C-alpha cells in the first residue's frame, strides 16, 4: 500500500477537521509579485489511486475548457511520460504557510517527467484523506487536496505555487439510484473545478 491512503472514519472529528481547521487555499502563489506567463501546462497526478487519477482528469478538463493555457490531456501526459501515474511521495512541508509537498528527492522525479512533457508549467496534485463520517442524522464525505505548481521557464525552474484545501459533501439519497462512488465523484469534480477556477483567477488565464 502506498503512502497516500484513504482514511475511513466514522468519527465526527474527521469532519470537523476537514471543514473547520484545515487550510483553505484552492490555489495561490508563494510570492504575491509572481507574474505568470502564457504557455503550456501539464496536470500530473501525484498518486496512482483511482481518486487521484480522476481528480487530475477533472482538473485537466476544466482548465482545457476554461483557460487560455495550452493544457495537455491526461492521455497525452500518459503517452509522453510512459508509465503514468507514478506515485510521487509527499512530506510535511518545512513552511506550512508556503507548503512544498514533495518529499526529499521527489522533485527530481517531477523534473524527469517534465523532460518528456516539455510544458512551461507542471501542476502536481494529490488527494489525501478521503473519509466518510457520520453525524446523528447524516452521512458525509470529505477529502483533502494538495498540490504544487512548478515553473519550468529557464529563468525559474522553481516551485511557485500551491494548493491546500479540504471539501465535504453530504450523502445523496440512494433511493434514486445514487451511490457512494457517485457522491465522491461529484466531490472530486467540484473540488477540481474550484481549484481550476482559482488557478485561472490567480494566473489571469481564464477565457473571456
Amino acid at each position: 500500500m502506498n503512502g497516500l491512503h484513504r482514511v475511513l472514519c466514522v468519527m465526527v472529528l474527521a469532519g470537523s477537521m476537514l471543514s473547520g481547521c484545515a487550510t483553505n487555499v484552492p490555489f495561490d502563489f508563494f510570492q504575491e509579485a509572481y507574474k505568470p506567463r502564457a504557455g503550456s501546462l501539464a496536470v500530473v497526478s501525484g498518486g496512482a489511486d483511482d481518486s487521484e487519477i480522476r481528480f487530475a482528469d477533472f482538473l485537466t478538463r476544466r482548465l482545457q475548457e476554461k483557460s487560455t493555457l495550452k493544457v495537455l490531456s491526461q492521455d497525452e501526459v500518459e503517452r509522453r511520460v510512459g508509465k503514468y501515474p507514478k506515485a510521487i511521495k509527499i512530506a510535511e512541508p518545512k513552511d506550512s504557510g508556503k507548503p512544498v509537498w514533495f518529499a526529499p528527492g521527489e522533485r527530481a522525479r517531477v523534473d524527469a517527467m517534465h523532460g518528456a512533457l516539455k510544458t512551461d508549467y507542471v501542476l502536481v496534485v494529490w488527494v489525501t484523506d478521503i473519509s466518510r463520517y457520520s453525524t446523528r442524522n447524516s452521512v458525509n464525505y470529505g477529502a483533502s487536496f494538495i498540490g504544487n505548481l512548478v515553473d519550468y521557464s529557464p529563468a525559474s525552474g522553481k516551485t511557485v505555487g500551491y494548493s491546500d484545501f479540504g471539501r465535504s459533501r453530504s450523502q445523496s439519497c440512494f433511493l434514486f439510484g445514487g451511490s457512494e462512488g457517485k457522491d465522491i465523484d461529484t466531490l472530486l469534480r467540484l473540488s477540481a473545478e474550484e481549484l481550476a477556477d482559482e488557478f485561472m483567477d490567480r494566473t489571469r488565464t481564464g477565457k473571456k
Partner: protein
Amino acid sequence: MKTFQFMVRTASVLVLPILLSGCFETFSLLETDYRPKGKTMAVIAGLDTESNVVLAQRMADALKKNTRFQMMPHKQAAQAIPNYPVKIKGPYSSAYLEIEEDYSRTDKKKIRDIQQKLGVDYLYVLWTPTATEIQGSIQQLHIIGQMFEGSSGKELGHGKYVATAGRVGGCCLVPKPDDKDRANAVDDISDYVSREIGEKMGMLKK
C-alpha cells in the same frame, strides 16, 4: 469487571479484521455445476502499481500451494506480456473508500490478447485500485478479481475482498502496520482466496 473489559478489548482486536475482510464474496463462479476444462493457470496484475504486482505474485504462489492447478510462475507471465505490468480497464465504476464493482466494464479484448500470449487454460486478473486507512492503525488494500477461461476470454467467476493489516485496541498506542504486517496481510488473503478458488473449481489439494 476488568477481566471482561480485557476480553472485549481482545475480541475487538481479533474480530474486527475478520469482519472487515469477511463482508465480501471472495470468489464465485458464474455457472453452477462447473467442471474444470484445463489445468494451467496464470495470475496477472490489472494495474501497474507495485502493490498490484506483488499481490499477483503472492496469489500465484498461493494457488500453486493450495490447488492442483499448474501455475505459470509470475515471472514467466510477466516476461511473456510486453511492458508488463500494463493497465487493463477493470471491473469497477469507482474505487474510493470501497470498490463499486461492475464486471461488465473490464477490457475483455485486452484480456483475450494477454491470454492468447500466455496460452494458459485460466487467467486470473487482479486489480487493487484503492487503499484505505481506518483510525490510523488499520490499513486495507481493496482487491477485485476476475477469472477468465480459454483463449476466448470468457468470464468464469469473480469476487472482491480486502487485505487488512493492523489491529485496533482500547487505547491510542496501537502502532501503525509496517511493511511486514502488510506483506502478511497479502499472504493471508491470498491463502484464503486461493483455497476458495480451489474448492469452487474442484481443484483444491486434499
